[in-house]
C-alpha cells in the first residue's frame, strides 16, 4: 500500500535528477565543483564518527559508574543512581548541548571547545540510558555467580571485572549497539553549536548552493550507509562473542 504510493515518487525523484528543475550537478562527481562539494560533505564523517565514538566510550564508563550504586543493597547509593538517571533523562539532548557550550563556561569559568562540549553533552545524556542497560544486564546474572566469586574470596572489583561484567556485557551487546546507532544520529544536533560534522556541512553547503533537496538527500544517504555499516559490525561482534561461548 505504502510501497505503491512511494514507488512513483521514487521514480520521479531519480528521473528528476536529469530534468531542469533538479540540480544534481551540485554533487555530481564528474565535475570539479560537484566533486569538491561532495568531498566537503563526506569530510564531515570524520567529526560525526569522532564525536559519537568518543561520547559513547565516555557514556559507557559513566553509565557503569552510575549503574553500580544502583545495585547496592543500601538505600543511599540506590537513591544517587535514581536521581542521576531521572534528572539526566529529563533534559533534551539539544538543550544539554546548548547549556554545556554556552552555560558551562560561565558557571565553571573554563573555555570549552565545540568538540568537547558536544562530546560531554552527548555522553552525559546517553549515560543515563547506559546506566539502565548495565543495571539490567548485571541483574540478569545469576546470584550463584556472585556467591561463587565470594566463595573464592574475590574482591568486589575482581568479581565485577572477571566474573560478572564479562557475562553481562555479552548479554547487553545488542542494546549497546542500539545506543551507538542512536548516538551517531544524535551527534547531528551538535551542528547547532558549529561542529563541522555531516549535518553542519550540509547546512553550510545549502546556504551557498541553494540546493537543499539534493544536498540533504546526500546527507540522508550518508547517515544510512554509516549506520548500516555500524549495525553490521555490531551483529558480527555479537556472533563472534556468541561463538566464543559455544566453543
Amino acid at each position, binding site marked *: 500500500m505504502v510501497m505503491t504510493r512511494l514507488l512513483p515518487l521514487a521514480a520521479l525523484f531519480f528521473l528528476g535528477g536529469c530534468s531542469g528543475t533538479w540540480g544534481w550537478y551540485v554533487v555530481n562527481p564528474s565535475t570539479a565543483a560537484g566533486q569538491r562539494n561532495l568531498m566537503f560533505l563526506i569530510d564531515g564523517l570524520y567529526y560525526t564518527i569522532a564525536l559519537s565514538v568518543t561520547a559513547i566510550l565516555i557514556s559507557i564508563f559513566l553509565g557503569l559508574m552510575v549503574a553500580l550504586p544502583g545495585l547496592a543493597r543500601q538505600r543511599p547509593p540506590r537513591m544517587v543512581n535514581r536521581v542521576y538517571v531521572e534528572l539526566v533523562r529529563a533534559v533534551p539532548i539539544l538543550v544539554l548541548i546548548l547549556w554545556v557550550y554556552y552555560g558551562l563556561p560561565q558557571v565553571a569559568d573554563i573555555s570549552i571547545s565545540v568538540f568537547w562540549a558536544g562530546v560531554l553533552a552527548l555522553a552525559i545524556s546517553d549515560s543515563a540510558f547506559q546506566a539502565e542497560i548495565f543495571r539490567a544486564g548485571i541483574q540478569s546474572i545469576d546470584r*550463584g*555467580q556472585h556467591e*561463587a566469586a*565470594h*566463595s573464592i574470596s*574475590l574482591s568486589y572489583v575482581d568479581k565485577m571485572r*572477571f*566474573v560478572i561484567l564479562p*557475562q553481562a556485557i555479552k548479554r547487553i551487546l545488542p542494546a549497546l549497539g542500539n545506543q551507538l546507532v542512536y548516538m551517531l544520529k544524535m551527534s547531528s544536533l551538535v551542528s547547532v553549536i558549529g561542529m563541522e560534522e555531516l549535518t553542519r556541512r550540509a547546512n553550510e553547503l545549502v546556504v551557498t548552493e541553494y540546493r537543499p533537496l539534493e544536498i540533504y538527500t546526500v546527507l540522508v544517504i550518508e547517515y544510512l550507509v554509516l549506520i548500516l555499516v555500524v549495525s553490521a559490525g555490531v551483529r558480527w561482534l555479537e556472533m563472534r562473542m556468541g561463538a566464543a561461548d559455544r566453543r
Partner: protein
Amino acid sequence: MRDSTHARSTQAAAGRAGGSGTDFISLRHVSKFFGDFRALDDVSLDIGLGQKIVICGPSGSGKSTLIRCINRLETHDSGEIAIDGVRLDDSTAARAVLRNNVGMVFQQFNLFPHLSILENLTLGPVRARGMDQVAARELAEYYLERVKIPEQIEKYPHQLSGGQQQRVAIARALCMEPQIMLFDEPTSALDPEMIAEVLEVIEELAGSGMTMICVTHEMGFAGHVADRMVFMDHGKIVETAPPQDFFSKPKSDRCKTFLQQILRH
C-alpha cells in the same frame, strides 16, 4: 607443594592448643532473620579440626542458611560464629580467616560459564591469593587430578556432564587450599548415575583429614563419612548424634518421621 596445607593445619592446631577450646568452628546462640521470619533460631554447634558433620532436615529448616552464615554469604543477626578463634564480622581479620580457611560447593555448581576449567580454577588463587599463573596452573592440575578429570582442563563448563562440573567446582574450592569445606546438597542437582562419582570424590577428601560440613540427604554416604549427624527443623538443631545412634535410635519424633520418609525412598 601441597605440604603448605598440612603445615598450616598443624600450625593452627598448635596455635589453638594454648587457647581455651579445641573447636575449630564454633557457633554460639546464632540467630538469623529474613524479615520477621526466623531462619536460624539460637543455633549452637562446635566442630573440631578434621571433623565431618552431615546436616539433614526437611526443606526450609535452615540447613543452607546455617552453612551460608559460616562463610558469610549470609550475615547472622545475633550470637557469635568463630573460626579458628576469630569472630566473624566485617573486619579484615575475619575476611582473611574466611579467605584462608573456608571453601564452598553449591548445589547448582555455579561454575563461571565464560571461563575455561583452568581459568575457573586459577582465578581465586591468582586474584585473591596473589599466586603467579604458573604456580596456579600447577595447583589446578593437581586438584583436577584429585577429582579425576585432569583431561578436561582446557574445556568450558557447558562441555562437561553435571557430575564433572560438580567435581570441577570441588576442585575450584580446593585450589584456595581451605581447611574447611562446606557442601550444600552437592548431589541434589545431579542425575542419579552421576551422584556416585561426586560422592566418591567427597569421601576421599574426607579421608584426607579435611574439616567438612555437608548438607545432604544421601544417608548411605552420611553413614560412611560423618563423625556427627545434625538434624535441623524450623531453624533449630533438634538432634545431634554419631551416625550409628542417629540412624538406629533417633530420640525426637520429628527426626524419626524424617528418617522414615527419607529412607523409604
